[in-house]
């Protein structure tokens, strides 16, 4: 299925969860926040939230800033 991930078109396995996606990307579950279609999905739901075809995902973290 197609997922728009941080602004890029990507192909992901059907039935993948947010936690699965983060693991697949090699991103630690700590200190990131995930939005699906502009709604935050809390960390407690990363294991269970299934992604759907066409979802728009943002994965953000802290970077240097003033």
């Amino acid at each position, binding site marked *: 299925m197609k997922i728009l991930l941080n602004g890029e078109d990507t192909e992901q396995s059907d039935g993948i969860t947010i936690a699965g996606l983060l693991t697949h990307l090699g991103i630690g579950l700590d*200190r990131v926040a995930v939005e699906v279609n502009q709604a935050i999905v809390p*960390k407690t739901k990363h294991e269970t939230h299934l992604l759907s075809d066409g979802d728009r995902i943002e994965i*953000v973290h*802290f*970077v*240097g800033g003033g």
Partner: protein
Amino acid sequence: MTNKTDKLVIGGREFSSRLMVGTGKYASFEQTAQALEISGAEIITVAVRRVNLDRSKESLLDYIDLKKYTLLPNTAGCYTADDAVRTCLLAREAGMSDFVKLEVLGDEKTLFPDNEELLKAAKVLVGEGFTVLPYCSDDVILCKKLEDLGCAAVMPLGAPIGSGLGIRNPYNIKIILENVKVPVIVDAGVGSASDAAIAMELGCDGVLMNTAIACAQDPIAMAEAMKLAVIAGRLSYKAGRIPRKLYANASSPLEGMFL
């Protein structure tokens, strides 16, 4: 040294350092960490951005001891209240803290705040339980409105972000200090240690800076200079300066002159 009881209290939390430091624009993460350490800052700002999907890239937080610092995520780059609120919600989810530096910018050239959008965002965020520290214009009426909305501090600019022009309107800062009860932190504009000392001598509760340290020729040395300037400025403010006089007043006694 500074009075140990002279703490800065924001949102019910106590801080010993009155210098807050940004983490942008350093040459490397090692340099960032070293400058933060030397500065003595306890509150450090960070930005919220997309994770780089290229796993080889290191992350700032790998270099920072999160037990030592309170992260203050900013809303840099936001031009509307909606974008700023969205960014703060993501920051809280990523960092699990309610502290946010709220900035809603009006235009790219000046990076001055859009105060109308700022008030809108502040209202929503206070309602959502955030500890809101807004970057704002040096305008007492605006600062009072932000205080009335429940912001934990106000952070008027000394000069445009990254300009290094210093405290361009000390009288406005003074008026703000006399009329709001929440901590007043000068945010943006500081270029050198003397600028930081001036802010503190005016009676400000703290100073927040990034470029002045990160883009100095020697950021580590400047971090130390800023630390000392903020301490010196605070002590000078508390000590109470002499009134300014137009004419001289001799320091040596006239009595006992033998000429």
